[in-house]
């Protein structure tokens, strides 16, 4: 057995009212890639913050033993001195500065009062080559893509002489290709003897890259799964540990499927970019959705899916609209107004719940009633009791975990926020629901619950359009799937017939212009 580089022993960390970590034990061998998985709020990030000194020594109980010595880290500098470097989920680079400046930010080369730029850039270049970047360290960070920015973060960590590298969701903002490149780079570093901890929600990546997988649930380490073998551990196996039960089916079965008449029909719909009116963002799209049907729209980033949905929802995106919308077979002339769309019983559930979905500084109650205040008020005077009752009703229905509906939405976890967002639109009583990435950034358990809600909506006769970038989700849930690419509808398939391969083939074909 290889040497243990890091051992965290009986770590307990309490925040006022919550035990975030409860007697956690965690071991990392030298030279391995160790994955830390668990649902949102399970305690992964808290554990890493304890390790890196963000929560200083004394604010937690237990011991950190690194390289055979008990350590007391009072801040990040202390842990970095020993080669423990953490790369956070959100990129922490200053876009206006050069790569070199960013890499040595807070760690400047040269004298106390004068930075030695020659050394800085020379060394920066050296580390950039190590991560496989050919860019000069003198270019501004904003000129390179997010994939390369993530590599710059790693180069920055290397420049700090990292021995134990912690990557928190390193691929969350990367596309498929860049993700794979990053994971391969990690494997390369492993060969050179680097030890790494990766936190990730993407279980296929974890299975691909990690030697050992530790599952964290409810602030405790549940189990450690060995992945040294030639056979990769299955995602189902990991999920079982994460949620504490066997999920035999990641997608709930829908019984009693009754698909009715066409409810919404979009006919030759074209939308132009609001700032560059000559650019078509949605290009001659025709589609329809029936009552009780779940229709998926799959496409890569920038395919125009969000823009399509928002333009249908009261023209809340774009200019120069052409084409026709029909509801229940009748053409509708909708004004450029979200309120008008709601009146036509359309709801758009945004992909960006924090950005334009919820009012984080307000309570669950206020957010739930927002899109349909008329229903709880008479002559514009809000009936506070009725509002409270409605919020309670949806809290029960959607299993929103909160002590009270007066709780501020900003204090909820991602999954619960998503439920509040859904509650708001369900309360608006729409017939047509346009769901944009309804499970983005939420954990496996919450995803399952959202899927159940979507199925219930369809069973209640709503027409559901679900936009998603996750193929398994689209395949698992949808009755029919549209495929979009570069603003155009490039394919349509039955959910029962579609496969990952057939959908990707359609996109590739359209990309080649066939």
């Amino acid at each position, binding site marked *: 057995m290889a040497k243990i580089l890091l051992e965290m022993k009986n770590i307990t960390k309490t925040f006022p009212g919550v035990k975030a970590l409860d007697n956690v034990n965690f071991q990392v061998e030298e030279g391995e890639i160790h994955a830390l998985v668990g649902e949102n709020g399970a305690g992964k990030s808290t554990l890493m913050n304890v390790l890196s000194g963000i929560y200083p020594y004394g604010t937690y109980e237990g011991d950190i033993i690194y390289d055979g010595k008990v350590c007391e880290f009072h801040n990040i500098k202390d842990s970095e001195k020993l080669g423990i470097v953490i790369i956070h989920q959100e990129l922490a680079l200053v876009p206006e500065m050069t790569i070199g400046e960013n890499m040595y930010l807070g760690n400047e080369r040269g004298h106390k009062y004068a930075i030695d730029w020659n050394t800085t850039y020379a060394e920066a270049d050296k580390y950039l080559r190590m991560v496989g970047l050919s860019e000069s360290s003198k270019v501004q960070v904003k000129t390179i893509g997010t994939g390369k920015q993530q590599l710059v973060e790693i180069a920055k960590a290397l420049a700090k002489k990292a021995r134990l590298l912690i990557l928190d969701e390193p691929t969350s903002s990367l596309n498929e290709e860049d993700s794979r490149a990053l994971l391969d780079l990690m494997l390369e570093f492993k060969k050179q003897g680097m030890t790494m901890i990766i936190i990730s929600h993407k279980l296929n990546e974890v299975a691909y890259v990690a030697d050992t997988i530790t599952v964290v649930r409810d602030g405790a380490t549940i189990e450690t799964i060995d992945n040294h073998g030639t056979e990769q551990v299955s995602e189902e196996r990991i999920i079982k540990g994460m949620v504490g039960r066997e999920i035999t089916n990641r997608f709930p079965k829908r019984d009693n499927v009754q698909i009715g008449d066409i409810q919404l029909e979009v006919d030759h719909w074209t939308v132009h970019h609001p700032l560059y009116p000559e650019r078509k963002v949605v290009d001659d799209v025709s589609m329809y959705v029936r009552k009780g049907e779940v229709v998926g729209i799959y496409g890569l980033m920038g395919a125009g899916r969000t823009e399509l949905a928002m333009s249908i929802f009261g023209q809340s995106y774009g200019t120069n609209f052409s084409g026709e919308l029909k509801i229940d077979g009748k053409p509708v002339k909708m004004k450029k*107004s*979200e309120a008008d769309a709601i009146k036509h019983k359309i709801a758009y559930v945004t992909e960006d719940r924090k950005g334009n*979905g919820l009012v*984080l500084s*307000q309570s669950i109650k206020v957010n739930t009633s927002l899109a349909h205040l008329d229903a709880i008020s008479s002559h*514009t005077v809000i009936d506070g*009791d009725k509002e409270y009752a409605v919020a309670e009703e949806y809290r029960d229905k959607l299993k929103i975990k909160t002590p009270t509906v*007066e709780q501020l939405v900003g204090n909820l976890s991602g999954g619960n926020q998503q439920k509040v967002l859904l509650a708001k639109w369900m309360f608006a009583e729409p017939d047509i629901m346009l769901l944009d990435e309804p499970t983005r950034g939420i954990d496996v358990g919450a995803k399952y619950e959202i899927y159940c809600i979507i199925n219930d909506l369809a069973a209640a006769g709503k027409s559901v359009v679900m936009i998603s970038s996750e193929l398994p989700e689209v395949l698992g849930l949808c009755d029919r799937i549209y495929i979009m690419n570069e603003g155009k509808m490039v394919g349509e398939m039955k959910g029962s017939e579609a496969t990952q391969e057939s959908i990707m083939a359609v996109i590739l074909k359209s990309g080649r212009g066939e």
Partner: protein
Amino acid sequence: MDKKVLASTLKKNAMLVVLVLVYLFFMVLTGGGIFRPTSFNALISQNAYVYILGCGMLMCMLTGGNIDLSCGAFVCLLGAIGGVLMVIQGWGTGISLLVVLLIGIVYGCGLGALVAYVRVPPWIATLAGYLAFRGLGTAILRANSSTGSIGPFPDSFLDIFSRIVFKTPEGVMNIPCIVAGIVAAALVVLLVFRNRAVRLKKGYEADSFGAAAAKSGIGAAVILLVMYKLSLAGGIPTVLLWVTGIVLIYSFITSKTTIGRHFYVVGGNIEAARLSGVNTKRIMFLAYLNMAVLTSISAMTVIARFTAANANAGKNFEMDAISACVVGGVSASGGAGSILGMVIGATLIGVINLGMFQISLDANYQRVVKGFVLLAAVVFDILSKQKQK
């Protein structure tokens, strides 16, 4: 009551505690002077404009920390116009007030349209008025009066804005005033308990009996004290009726109506509000229209109090209104704040002003003290909120 509950209650009402402490401080310093009936009268009549403008400023700030810099200068201009109409031209009070209000509405519509539909940043849009209106107002005053001051105003006008209802001599208890106080205090108690009873009946979260008793008890006691003191100072100033009416109306709008809710969500997340079907532009428009209307009313109370319109009227009023809001816990980035908080903030500033005046502190030092007290109050508020988390 255990210590935890007490501590959290104190933190939640930090500014109220500060107000009480500051009041007690000046009580000692002025040898009880600030507790005299006339001081109560002065506190209300001198600060009426802060309460009225504060309501308008609160609505503006709720939409996203937007402010109106022009309201002070607009008070000066409207005062000058009112003076010309009533004193120089001799128009009737009713028609003059109507004209002044109309001018307010016209300005409000223009400003609201600029801010909401042309999307001029509010502080720039109102900076124009800040610069222009005082100049225009002063010019009008100069053109009509050699002293630059127009007055005195007719009695019918003063009766509406700056007299005392059913006035009795000082020191003699004013019966209507006391009766009004008792009725108001009883109403407060009744409303708090009725609300609690309804919530309990429907099985919702409600205050404990002690909390409800404390809340209504303090409210009722403050009302009774103020009204008792006022009754000894001659009775209820008419301007108090204006202030009470406006404060109650805006308190109702912000807490109970859909339109008030829209102001909060626009400030909390304007995109989320828009995608939820809120007409965000209309809200911005209304915020500034409303501000201009309240400024017109405020202008009338000010010229009535001085019984003259002059070039200095309304100076720094915009800053007073903003200070009242900020000290009262209104978020500088929008989406949070209450009328009650603003009223407490305005009263705090009023007490400090009055206290310093009564101990005859040099006017320059008064400003120094005010600046630091404002800063201290806000820092205290922020710190106490941080600890709450």
